[in-house]
Protein backbone atom coordinates (compact mmCIF):
# COMPACT_ATOMS: atom_id res chain seq x y z
CA UNK A 1 0.00 0.00 0.00
CA UNK A 2 2.82 2.33 0.94
CA UNK A 3 4.69 1.51 -2.26
CA UNK A 4 1.53 2.26 -4.24
CA UNK A 5 1.41 5.71 -2.68
CA UNK A 6 5.10 6.10 -3.47
CA UNK A 7 4.30 5.28 -7.09
CA UNK A 8 1.25 7.49 -7.58
CA UNK A 9 2.55 10.65 -5.92
CA UNK A 10 4.36 11.66 -9.13
CA UNK A 11 1.19 12.00 -11.16
CA UNK A 12 -0.77 14.82 -9.61
CA UNK A 13 0.32 15.67 -6.08
CA UNK A 14 4.06 15.93 -6.71
CA UNK A 15 3.99 16.09 -10.47
CA UNK A 16 7.51 17.21 -11.40
CA UNK A 17 6.33 19.58 -14.14
CA UNK A 18 2.95 20.94 -13.09
CA UNK A 19 3.55 21.23 -9.36
CA UNK A 20 7.29 21.24 -8.68
CA UNK A 21 8.16 23.14 -11.88
CA UNK A 22 11.30 21.10 -12.56
CA UNK A 23 12.72 20.10 -15.92
CA UNK A 24 11.20 23.04 -17.76
CA UNK A 25 13.58 23.03 -20.73
CA UNK A 26 12.64 19.64 -22.20
CA UNK A 27 9.01 20.25 -21.18
CA UNK A 28 8.77 23.33 -23.36
CA UNK A 29 11.25 22.31 -26.01
CA UNK A 30 10.02 18.86 -27.01
CA UNK A 31 6.25 19.11 -26.79
CA UNK A 32 5.48 20.35 -30.29
CA UNK A 33 3.56 17.11 -30.81
CA UNK A 34 2.14 14.52 -28.43
CA UNK A 35 4.44 11.78 -29.79
CA UNK A 36 7.58 13.80 -29.17
CA UNK A 37 6.42 14.63 -25.66
CA UNK A 38 5.72 10.97 -24.91
CA UNK A 39 9.08 9.90 -26.37
CA UNK A 40 10.98 12.43 -24.31
CA UNK A 41 9.02 11.44 -21.20
CA UNK A 42 9.79 7.75 -21.64
CA UNK A 43 13.48 8.39 -22.37
CA UNK A 44 13.71 10.41 -19.17
CA UNK A 45 11.81 7.70 -17.27
CA UNK A 46 14.36 5.09 -18.34
CA UNK A 47 17.26 7.27 -17.20
CA UNK A 48 15.47 8.08 -13.96
CA UNK A 49 14.71 4.45 -13.06
CA UNK A 50 18.15 3.15 -13.96
CA UNK A 51 20.05 5.93 -12.22
CA UNK A 52 17.84 5.57 -9.12
CA UNK A 53 18.57 1.84 -9.14
CA UNK A 54 22.33 2.23 -9.48
CA UNK A 55 22.58 5.10 -7.04
CA UNK A 56 20.70 3.17 -4.36
CA UNK A 57 22.96 0.15 -5.03
CA UNK A 58 26.19 2.09 -4.59
CA UNK A 59 25.04 4.63 -2.03
CA UNK A 60 27.15 3.09 0.75
CA UNK A 61 30.30 2.90 -1.37
CA UNK A 62 30.51 6.56 -2.40
CA UNK A 63 32.18 8.98 0.01
CA UNK A 64 29.83 11.79 0.90
CA UNK A 65 32.02 14.54 -0.52
CA UNK A 66 32.14 13.26 -4.09
CA UNK A 67 28.59 11.98 -4.29
CA UNK A 68 27.28 14.61 -6.71
CA UNK A 69 29.98 14.05 -9.38
CA UNK A 70 29.50 10.31 -8.93
CA UNK A 71 25.74 10.66 -9.47
CA UNK A 72 26.36 12.77 -12.56
CA UNK A 73 28.61 10.10 -14.06
CA UNK A 74 25.97 7.43 -13.43
CA UNK A 75 23.28 9.59 -15.02
CA UNK A 76 25.45 10.54 -18.00
CA UNK A 77 26.17 6.86 -18.64
CA UNK A 78 22.49 6.03 -18.98
CA UNK A 79 21.83 9.12 -21.07
CA UNK A 80 24.53 7.98 -23.48
CA UNK A 81 22.90 4.54 -23.67
CA UNK A 82 19.51 6.11 -24.44
CA UNK A 83 21.11 8.33 -27.06
CA UNK A 84 22.79 5.43 -28.87
CA UNK A 85 19.76 3.12 -28.71
CA UNK A 86 17.45 5.84 -29.99
CA UNK A 87 19.80 6.75 -32.81
CA UNK A 88 19.86 3.12 -33.90
CA UNK A 89 16.19 2.15 -33.56
CA UNK A 90 14.14 5.37 -33.59
CA UNK A 91 16.06 7.69 -35.91
CA UNK A 92 13.10 9.97 -36.67
CA UNK A 93 12.35 10.56 -32.98
CA UNK A 94 16.07 11.06 -32.39
CA UNK A 95 16.11 13.73 -35.09
CA UNK A 96 13.14 15.63 -33.74
CA UNK A 97 14.24 15.57 -30.09
CA UNK A 98 17.76 16.53 -31.16
CA UNK A 99 19.74 18.42 -28.58
CA UNK A 100 17.35 17.60 -25.76
CA UNK A 101 18.47 13.97 -25.47
CA UNK A 102 22.01 14.73 -24.23
CA UNK A 103 20.45 17.46 -22.12
CA UNK A 104 18.62 14.84 -20.00
CA UNK A 105 21.88 14.86 -18.04
CA UNK A 106 21.18 18.33 -16.71
CA UNK A 107 17.49 17.69 -16.09
CA UNK A 108 17.10 18.69 -12.44
CA UNK A 109 14.48 15.98 -11.88
CA UNK A 110 16.95 13.15 -12.42
CA UNK A 111 19.71 14.52 -10.22
CA UNK A 112 17.13 15.70 -7.71
CA UNK A 113 15.64 12.21 -7.25
CA UNK A 114 19.09 10.62 -7.01
CA UNK A 115 20.13 13.05 -4.32
CA UNK A 116 16.86 13.40 -2.41
CA UNK A 117 15.46 9.87 -2.65
CA UNK A 118 17.69 7.13 -4.06
CA UNK A 119 20.70 7.97 -1.92
CA UNK A 120 18.64 7.44 1.24
CA UNK A 121 16.21 4.64 0.41
CA UNK A 122 16.15 0.92 -0.42
CA UNK A 123 16.54 -0.42 -3.93
CA UNK A 124 12.89 -1.39 -4.42
CA UNK A 125 11.43 1.90 -3.27
CA UNK A 126 14.01 3.84 -5.31
CA UNK A 127 13.01 2.01 -8.48
CA UNK A 128 9.31 2.56 -7.73
CA UNK A 129 9.98 6.21 -7.02
CA UNK A 130 11.82 6.52 -10.35
CA UNK A 131 8.93 4.86 -12.19
CA UNK A 132 6.34 7.08 -10.51
CA UNK A 133 8.13 10.37 -11.07
CA UNK A 134 9.14 9.30 -14.59
CA UNK A 135 5.60 8.41 -15.59
CA UNK A 136 4.37 11.65 -14.02
CA UNK A 137 6.86 13.53 -16.18
CA UNK A 138 5.88 11.58 -19.31
CA UNK A 139 2.21 12.16 -18.48
CA UNK A 140 2.76 15.92 -18.16
CA UNK A 141 4.71 16.10 -21.41
CA UNK A 142 2.11 14.07 -23.28
CA UNK A 143 -0.71 16.30 -22.02
CA UNK A 144 1.13 19.47 -23.00
CA UNK A 145 2.11 17.94 -26.35
CA UNK A 146 -1.48 16.89 -27.06
CA UNK A 147 -2.87 20.33 -26.21
CA UNK A 148 -0.31 22.06 -28.42
CA UNK A 149 -0.70 19.62 -31.30
CA UNK A 150 -4.50 19.77 -31.18
CA UNK A 151 -4.72 23.57 -31.01
CA UNK A 152 -1.88 24.12 -33.45
CA UNK A 153 -2.51 21.66 -36.23
CA UNK A 154 -5.83 19.97 -35.46
CA UNK A 155 -4.19 16.60 -34.97
CA UNK A 156 -3.75 14.25 -32.02
CA UNK A 157 -0.99 11.63 -32.22
CA UNK A 158 -0.91 12.37 -35.97
CA UNK A 159 -4.63 11.61 -36.41
CA UNK A 160 -6.54 14.52 -37.90
CA UNK A 161 -9.33 15.76 -35.63
CA UNK A 162 -10.24 18.90 -37.56
CA UNK A 163 -8.79 20.52 -40.71
CA UNK A 164 -5.35 22.01 -40.27
CA UNK A 165 -6.44 25.35 -41.73
CA UNK A 166 -8.37 26.14 -38.55
CA UNK A 167 -5.37 25.46 -36.31
CA UNK A 168 -3.56 28.24 -34.46
CA UNK A 169 -0.01 27.87 -35.67
CA UNK A 170 1.39 29.80 -32.73
CA UNK A 171 0.80 26.84 -30.41
CA UNK A 172 3.30 24.72 -32.30
CA UNK A 173 5.85 27.54 -32.24
CA UNK A 174 7.80 28.70 -29.20
CA UNK A 175 5.33 31.22 -27.66
CA UNK A 176 2.53 28.66 -27.60
CA UNK A 177 4.60 26.40 -25.36
CA UNK A 178 4.80 29.03 -22.63
CA UNK A 179 1.17 30.06 -22.94
CA UNK A 180 -0.26 26.52 -23.00
CA UNK A 181 1.84 25.48 -19.99
CA UNK A 182 0.79 28.61 -18.11
CA UNK A 183 -2.91 27.82 -18.49
CA UNK A 184 -2.45 24.12 -17.67
CA UNK A 185 -0.62 25.00 -14.44
CA UNK A 186 -3.36 27.47 -13.53
CA UNK A 187 -5.93 24.69 -14.04
CA UNK A 188 -3.96 22.17 -11.94
CA UNK A 189 -3.50 24.74 -9.15
CA UNK A 190 -7.24 25.23 -9.05
CA UNK A 191 -7.95 21.49 -8.99
CA UNK A 192 -5.44 20.92 -6.19
CA UNK A 193 -6.94 23.70 -4.14
CA UNK A 194 -10.44 22.27 -4.47
CA UNK A 195 -9.25 18.85 -3.30
CA UNK A 196 -7.53 20.27 -0.25
Amino acid at each position, binding site marked *: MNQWKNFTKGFIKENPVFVL*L*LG*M*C*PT*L*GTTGTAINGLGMGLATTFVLVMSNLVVSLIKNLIPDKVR*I*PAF*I*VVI*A*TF*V*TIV*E*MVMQAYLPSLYESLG*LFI*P*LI*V*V*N*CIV*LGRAEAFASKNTITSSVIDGLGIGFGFAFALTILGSVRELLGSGKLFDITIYPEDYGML*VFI*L*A*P*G*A*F*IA*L*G*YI*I*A*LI*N*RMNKKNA
Partner: protein
Amino acid sequence: MEYIIIIISAILVNNIVLNQFLGVCPFLGVSKKIETAVGMTGAVAFVMVLATIVTFLIQHYILFPFGIGYLQTISFILVIASLVQLVEIVLKKVSPSLYQALGVFLPLITTNCAILGVAILVIQKEFNLMEGVVYAVANAVGFGLALIIFAGLREHTDMQNVPKGLKGVPIALISAGILAMAFMGFSGIV
Protein backbone atom coordinates in the same frame (compact mmCIF):
# COMPACT_ATOMS: atom_id res chain seq x y z
CA MET B 1 30.26 39.61 -41.80
CA GLU B 2 29.78 36.02 -40.72
CA TYR B 3 30.34 37.03 -37.12
CA ILE B 4 27.62 39.67 -37.38
CA ILE B 5 25.17 37.08 -38.68
CA ILE B 6 26.07 34.71 -35.84
CA ILE B 7 25.61 37.47 -33.28
CA ILE B 8 22.28 38.77 -34.55
CA SER B 9 20.84 35.32 -35.07
CA ALA B 10 21.87 34.15 -31.58
CA ILE B 11 20.65 37.24 -29.73
CA LEU B 12 17.42 38.09 -31.50
CA VAL B 13 16.28 35.53 -34.04
CA ASN B 14 17.04 32.24 -32.30
CA ASN B 15 17.08 33.57 -28.78
CA ILE B 16 18.43 30.84 -26.55
CA VAL B 17 15.65 31.04 -23.96
CA LEU B 18 12.61 32.19 -25.89
CA ASN B 19 13.18 30.22 -29.05
CA GLN B 20 15.42 27.27 -28.20
CA PHE B 21 14.15 26.68 -24.64
CA LEU B 22 17.58 26.35 -23.10
CA GLY B 23 18.08 27.76 -19.63
CA VAL B 24 14.38 28.07 -18.85
CA CYS B 25 14.89 27.01 -15.21
CA PRO B 26 17.00 30.04 -14.23
CA PHE B 27 14.81 32.13 -16.54
CA LEU B 28 11.83 31.33 -14.31
CA GLY B 29 13.78 30.92 -11.09
CA VAL B 30 15.82 34.10 -10.72
CA SER B 31 13.69 36.55 -12.65
CA LYS B 32 11.78 37.99 -9.71
CA LYS B 33 14.12 40.95 -9.34
CA ILE B 34 16.22 42.81 -11.91
CA GLU B 35 19.32 42.79 -9.65
CA THR B 36 19.46 39.01 -9.35
CA ALA B 37 18.78 38.71 -13.05
CA VAL B 38 21.85 40.84 -13.78
CA GLY B 39 24.01 38.77 -11.41
CA MET B 40 22.87 35.51 -12.97
CA THR B 41 23.56 36.85 -16.45
CA GLY B 42 27.12 37.74 -15.46
CA ALA B 43 27.77 34.29 -14.03
CA VAL B 44 26.26 32.53 -17.03
CA ALA B 45 28.24 34.62 -19.51
CA PHE B 46 31.48 33.93 -17.68
CA VAL B 47 31.02 30.17 -17.43
CA MET B 48 29.47 29.81 -20.88
CA VAL B 49 32.46 31.31 -22.68
CA LEU B 50 34.98 29.37 -20.59
CA ALA B 51 33.08 26.11 -20.97
CA THR B 52 32.74 26.55 -24.73
CA ILE B 53 36.50 27.03 -25.14
CA VAL B 54 37.41 24.06 -22.94
CA THR B 55 34.85 21.65 -24.40
CA PHE B 56 35.84 22.72 -27.92
CA LEU B 57 39.48 21.83 -27.23
CA ILE B 58 38.49 18.52 -25.65
CA GLN B 59 36.27 17.59 -28.57
CA HIS B 60 38.83 18.43 -31.24
CA TYR B 61 42.02 17.29 -29.55
CA ILE B 62 40.86 14.30 -27.51
CA LEU B 63 37.48 12.93 -28.56
CA PHE B 64 37.78 13.19 -32.37
CA PRO B 65 41.40 11.98 -32.76
CA PHE B 66 40.75 8.93 -30.59
CA GLY B 67 37.36 8.21 -32.18
CA ILE B 68 35.46 8.32 -28.89
CA GLY B 69 32.81 10.85 -29.86
CA TYR B 70 30.17 8.91 -27.96
CA LEU B 71 31.77 10.02 -24.70
CA GLN B 72 30.79 13.62 -25.50
CA THR B 73 27.92 13.87 -23.03
CA ILE B 74 29.84 12.38 -20.09
CA SER B 75 33.06 14.29 -20.66
CA PHE B 76 31.34 17.63 -21.29
CA ILE B 77 29.19 17.51 -18.18
CA LEU B 78 32.14 16.50 -16.00
CA VAL B 79 34.27 19.27 -17.45
CA ILE B 80 31.54 21.84 -16.90
CA ALA B 81 30.92 20.68 -13.33
CA SER B 82 34.59 20.86 -12.41
CA LEU B 83 35.02 24.14 -14.26
CA VAL B 84 32.26 25.70 -12.21
CA GLN B 85 33.98 24.51 -9.02
CA LEU B 86 37.29 25.88 -10.24
CA VAL B 87 35.82 29.25 -11.16
CA GLU B 88 34.25 29.43 -7.74
CA ILE B 89 37.55 28.73 -5.94
CA VAL B 90 39.58 31.09 -8.12
CA LEU B 91 37.07 33.92 -7.87
CA LYS B 92 36.96 33.59 -4.10
CA LYS B 93 40.71 34.12 -3.89
CA VAL B 94 41.32 36.60 -6.72
CA SER B 95 38.30 38.86 -6.69
CA PRO B 96 36.16 38.67 -3.57
CA SER B 97 33.90 41.47 -4.80
CA LEU B 98 33.08 39.65 -8.03
CA TYR B 99 32.60 36.47 -6.00
CA GLN B 100 30.10 38.27 -3.81
CA ALA B 101 28.15 39.35 -6.87
CA LEU B 102 28.17 36.01 -8.73
CA GLY B 103 28.91 33.48 -5.98
CA VAL B 104 25.36 32.43 -5.14
CA PHE B 105 24.59 31.68 -8.75
CA LEU B 106 27.63 29.57 -9.54
CA PRO B 107 26.49 26.25 -8.03
CA LEU B 108 23.19 26.58 -9.89
CA ILE B 109 24.99 26.83 -13.20
CA THR B 110 26.14 23.21 -13.42
CA THR B 111 22.58 22.13 -14.05
CA ASN B 112 21.84 25.02 -16.39
CA CYS B 113 21.14 23.36 -19.70
CA ALA B 114 22.12 26.51 -21.60
CA ILE B 115 25.80 25.90 -20.82
CA LEU B 116 25.90 22.27 -21.94
CA GLY B 117 23.51 23.08 -24.78
CA VAL B 118 25.73 25.80 -26.23
CA ALA B 119 28.82 23.63 -25.85
CA ILE B 120 27.16 20.83 -27.83
CA LEU B 121 25.65 23.22 -30.41
CA VAL B 122 29.08 24.70 -31.16
CA ILE B 123 30.31 21.20 -32.04
CA GLN B 124 27.16 20.33 -34.01
CA LYS B 125 27.29 23.50 -36.09
CA GLU B 126 30.96 22.80 -36.87
CA PHE B 127 32.15 26.24 -35.85
CA ASN B 128 35.85 26.94 -35.48
CA LEU B 129 37.15 28.16 -32.12
CA MET B 130 36.72 31.87 -32.86
CA GLU B 131 33.19 31.43 -34.18
CA GLY B 132 32.41 29.27 -31.18
CA VAL B 133 33.53 31.96 -28.76
CA VAL B 134 31.51 34.61 -30.62
CA TYR B 135 28.51 32.30 -30.58
CA ALA B 136 28.88 31.72 -26.84
CA VAL B 137 29.17 35.43 -26.08
CA ALA B 138 26.17 36.23 -28.27
CA ASN B 139 24.10 33.54 -26.59
CA ALA B 140 25.06 34.85 -23.18
CA VAL B 141 23.93 38.32 -24.26
CA GLY B 142 20.69 36.86 -25.61
CA PHE B 143 20.12 35.04 -22.33
CA GLY B 144 20.77 38.24 -20.39
CA LEU B 145 18.50 40.30 -22.62
CA ALA B 146 15.59 37.89 -22.26
CA LEU B 147 16.15 37.44 -18.53
CA ILE B 148 16.37 41.16 -17.74
CA ILE B 149 13.35 42.11 -19.87
CA PHE B 150 11.41 39.29 -18.24
CA ALA B 151 12.45 40.37 -14.73
CA GLY B 152 11.21 43.86 -15.51
CA LEU B 153 7.90 42.47 -16.72
CA ARG B 154 7.52 40.34 -13.62
CA GLU B 155 8.25 43.20 -11.26
CA HIS B 156 5.48 45.05 -13.02
CA THR B 157 2.90 42.21 -13.10
CA ASP B 158 3.44 41.59 -9.38
CA MET B 159 1.80 44.93 -8.68
CA GLN B 160 -1.16 44.32 -10.94
CA ASN B 161 -4.47 42.81 -10.05
CA VAL B 162 -4.07 39.37 -11.63
CA PRO B 163 -6.95 36.84 -11.61
CA LYS B 164 -6.56 34.56 -8.59
CA GLY B 165 -5.92 31.31 -10.41
CA LEU B 166 -3.26 32.82 -12.64
CA LYS B 167 -1.19 34.38 -9.85
CA GLY B 168 2.50 33.52 -9.70
CA VAL B 169 3.92 31.04 -12.18
CA PRO B 170 1.02 30.83 -14.67
CA ILE B 171 0.94 34.56 -15.39
CA ALA B 172 4.74 34.58 -15.60
CA LEU B 173 4.64 31.81 -18.20
CA ILE B 174 1.96 33.57 -20.21
CA SER B 175 3.91 36.82 -20.24
CA ALA B 176 7.00 34.84 -21.30
CA GLY B 177 4.90 33.53 -24.17
CA ILE B 178 3.94 37.03 -25.24
CA LEU B 179 7.59 38.08 -24.96
CA ALA B 180 8.55 35.13 -27.17
CA MET B 181 5.94 36.28 -29.66
CA ALA B 182 7.58 39.70 -29.72
CA PHE B 183 10.94 38.07 -30.44
CA MET B 184 9.34 36.14 -33.31
CA GLY B 185 9.05 39.49 -35.05
CA PHE B 186 12.79 39.35 -35.66
CA SER B 187 12.58 36.08 -37.54
CA GLY B 188 12.92 37.63 -41.00
CA ILE B 189 16.17 39.46 -40.33
CA VAL B 190 18.75 36.77 -40.99
